[in-house]
């Protein structure tokens, strides 16, 4: 009997943990969408398709190979020509220096879950780590 109730309790704790993580992910995703609309959609469009040869699409392939760079680009902008889906884009990307690590984590979670191949949260620590690395 004790064994069964212990099992029962651990199932409850486990599923509660699961859903807490799920809820956090939902929050990141929803917040990320709002931030995306404000800071990114003007150029990259709501559907992530970009605009002709001016502003590149939010590309799955580029994102999975360049996560560190993507996080840095969102915050610091960039002037380099980017090759995305075999097309080159040379319009400068403006910086968003006011974005906090939590906001960057939310945007990154949103775009990687929406158009990338990730199904998990980008944690704040991962963002901080990336920002440290792109300083060097």
């Amino acid at each position: 009997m004790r064994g069964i109730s212990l099992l029962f309790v651990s199932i409850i704790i486990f599923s509660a943990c699961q859903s807490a993580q799920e809820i956090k992910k939902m929050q990141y995703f929803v917040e990320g969408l709002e931030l995306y609309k404000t800071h990114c959609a003007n150029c990259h469009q709501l559907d992530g398709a970009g605009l002709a040869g001016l502003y590149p699409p939010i590309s799955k392939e580029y994102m999975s190979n360049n996560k560190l760079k993507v996080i840095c680009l969102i915050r610091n902008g960039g002037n380099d020509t980017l090759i995305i889906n075999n097309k080159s884009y040379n319009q400068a990307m403006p910086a968003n220096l006011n974005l906090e690590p939590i906001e960057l984590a939310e945007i990154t979670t949103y775009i990687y879950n929406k158009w990338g191949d990730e199904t998990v949260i980008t944690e704040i620590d991962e963002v901080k780590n990336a920002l440290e690395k792109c300083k060097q």
Partner: protein
Amino acid sequence: MSKGTFLLVIVVAFSFIFFTISCKKSVKILPILGERDTKNIVIDGKSKIDTIYHTIPNFTFIDQNADTVTNQAYKDKKIYVADFFFTSCPTICPKMKTQMSRLYRHFVDNELVAFLSHTIDPRHDTVPVLKEFAKNLGVSGNQWRFVTGEKEKIYEVALKGYMATAKEDSTADGGFIHSGAFILVDKNQRVRGIYDGTISEEVDELMEDIDLLLLEKK
């Protein structure tokens, strides 16, 4: 119900239907915007007062293909939509260009409709820069012209001609402030509508108004 009342009901019903239909068909006429003036003219020996409408002042700019563009490109020939932007603009221009692209694609190859985008940053937006920008937007030919010129002339035509704001301001994002307006100009160079080029619904309205203006007799 007598025959008389029956007939009356029929007549009322028909006239109601008739008026509803004819009201719906009544065409919206676009206003002529800007300040007006009057002058006395003499027609057949009689003196009359004529209205002088606000028109776009004369301008001379250079487009992305290094061709000169003046009012003569449009006067009596085309209606056009004008706007003010700069290629490195981080704020509202991408939205404006998204919407203008939509308009352009809708009216592409229509010889009676043109688009005129003025840079407000001529120092950076030279002819080659504008050419590259147009190419990247998928624009060829000269239906949509991206023009540059003397900065003061551009700011002046914005304010005095198109009733739009454009000026330098180091405190603004990107260094300039400008309105996101799309200005609809008729064949007589008169301003017939001003729309917010960052809002999709307003651009839908502009699209309909262009169709209306195309139907208008000179």
